[in-house]
């Protein structure tokens, strides 16, 4: 964070005026004071602590939208530290969260009416599960933030409630041994936190399950699409060059508008393949046959190739048709495998097995398809 060291006016005022309590906060809140989600400051045994809003504003929603499209995603962060929700005291629960703003927002919006502490640890702006998988949401960082915030001086219960999905990175008995804080793994979803707390820190089976519904899958597709813009531009240029060279070779007159129109017409089947792999396979995931992601992509890619050939591309010659049936399934299968990075259920061993088997086939099919496509422009 570049503008990280902005001084907090509220904290400074307090220290100038106060005669007694005035303990300096050990937390570097950065520029949190100006953030729209901060709602005042409360005085505590460890110094001033920011209170946070539990309702999201339009700018939070806009920020989430931008992050989902990959805009400024890596700097969409919350300063690590301790925050208050409502009017917590020394016996209030402590929830631990990642410092990715999207994660933080999905937590705080569920906390209205509750009095508790939120310990935001530094996961480098990565969400809970991915950070846990990489170890940034890990035992060391949890212990470090407990110490930085001097949490033991603030709460009596000495208990941290973690997101369940941080467990791949957090060793509960290590945290307890080294910080004195007991770790309880809470529910998977923030929405279940009120019920979890009400039940005396107990999660039922439904709270422990990840779900991966249609909406969960669809919100992940924009970021996949944005990654494909560049390759698509290169491919469009490639098609344009093919059209240009074939026109020049035949000796026809050079008509830019026609060439551009033809290029985009030629692009359509492959643009469709990208949408199949990056949007339709995620959307239709549970309804597509097979277990391997690449198989699902292959099936839907072939269906799209048939649709395109049958309904739209009926004038295509043999080589062109062959290129459709080679490239489209290859692209769709490859993008479907890529979706493993977004799923909640694919194992590393499974992905390795799937890739070892399918990647050579995908490369071969795409390569042959490109050759067929290129030749089709010159015969």
């Amino acid at each position, binding site marked *: 964070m570049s503008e990280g060291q902005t001084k907090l006016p509220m904290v400074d005022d307090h220290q100038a005026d106060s005669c007694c309590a005035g303990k300096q906060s050990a937390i570097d809140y950065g520029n949190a004071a100006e953030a729209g989600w901060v709602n005042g400051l409360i005085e505590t045994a460890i110094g001033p602590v920011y209170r946070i809003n539990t309702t999201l504003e339009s700018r939070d929603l806009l920020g989430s939208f931008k992050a989902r499209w990959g805009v400024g995603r890596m700097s969409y962060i919350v300063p690590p530290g301790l925050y208050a929700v409502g009017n917590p005291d020394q016996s209030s629960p402590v929830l631990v969260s990642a410092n990715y703003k999207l994660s933080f927002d*999905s937590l705080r919006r569920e906390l209205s009416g509750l009095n508790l502490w939120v310990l935001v640890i530094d996961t480098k702006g990565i*969400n809970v599960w991915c950070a846990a998988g990489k170890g940034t949401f890990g035992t060391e960082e949890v212990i470090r933030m407990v110490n930085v915030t001097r949490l033991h001086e603030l709460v009596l219960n000495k208990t941290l409630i973690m997101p369940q999905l941080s467990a*791949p990175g957090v060793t509960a008995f290590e945290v307890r041994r080294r910080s004195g804080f007991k770790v309880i793994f809470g529910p998977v979803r*923030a929405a279940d936190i009120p019920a979890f707390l009400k039940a005396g820190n107990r999660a039922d089976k439904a709270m422990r399950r*990840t779900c991966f519904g249609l909406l969960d899958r669809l919100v992940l597709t924009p970021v996949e699409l944005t990654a494909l813009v560049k390759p698509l531009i290169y491919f469009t240029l490639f098609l344009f060059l093919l059209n240009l060279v074939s026109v020049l070779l035949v000796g026809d007159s050079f008509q830019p508008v026609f060439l551009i129109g033809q290029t985009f017409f030629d692009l359509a089947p492959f643009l469709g393949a990208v949408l199949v792999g990056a949007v339709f396979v995620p959307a239709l995931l549970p309804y597509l046959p097979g277990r391997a992601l690449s198989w699902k992509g292959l099936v839907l890619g072939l269906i799209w190739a048939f649709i395109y050939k049958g309904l739209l591309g009926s004038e295509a010659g043999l080589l062109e048709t062959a290129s459709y049936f080679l490239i489209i399934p290859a692209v769709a299968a490859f993008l479907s495998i890529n979706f493993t990075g977004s799923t909640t259920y*694919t194992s*590393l061993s*499974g992905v390795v097995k799937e890739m070892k088997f399918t990647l050579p086939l995908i490369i071969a099919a795409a390569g042959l398809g490109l050759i067929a496509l290129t030749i089709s422009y010159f015969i």
Partner: protein
Amino acid sequence: MKFRYLKNVVTLELDQNKCNGCGLCTEVCPQQVFTLNGKVSSIEDRDACLECGACARNCAPGAVSVRAGVGCAYAVLKDMYNIKSRCCDDDCGCSLDGIQY
């Protein structure tokens, strides 16, 4: 409903002799792979395992082992071909945003 991935690929192992019956594996597993029968845990749905490693990391007696890793094609590609990609470094754009908190 539970999504199913490939059969018989995961590296999850449980040594029931070492299990102390604390049941933490049944709590941390997001796929309900384990069940606690009396005082010993057992693997109930092995193929559902996504090798996240939560169980092994939180098993105090070390009864559970798994080759943990992120089942992500980008990461695997990078490993297989030693590619420097945008993914899976510290600035990775893992896309599981907001599904959990």
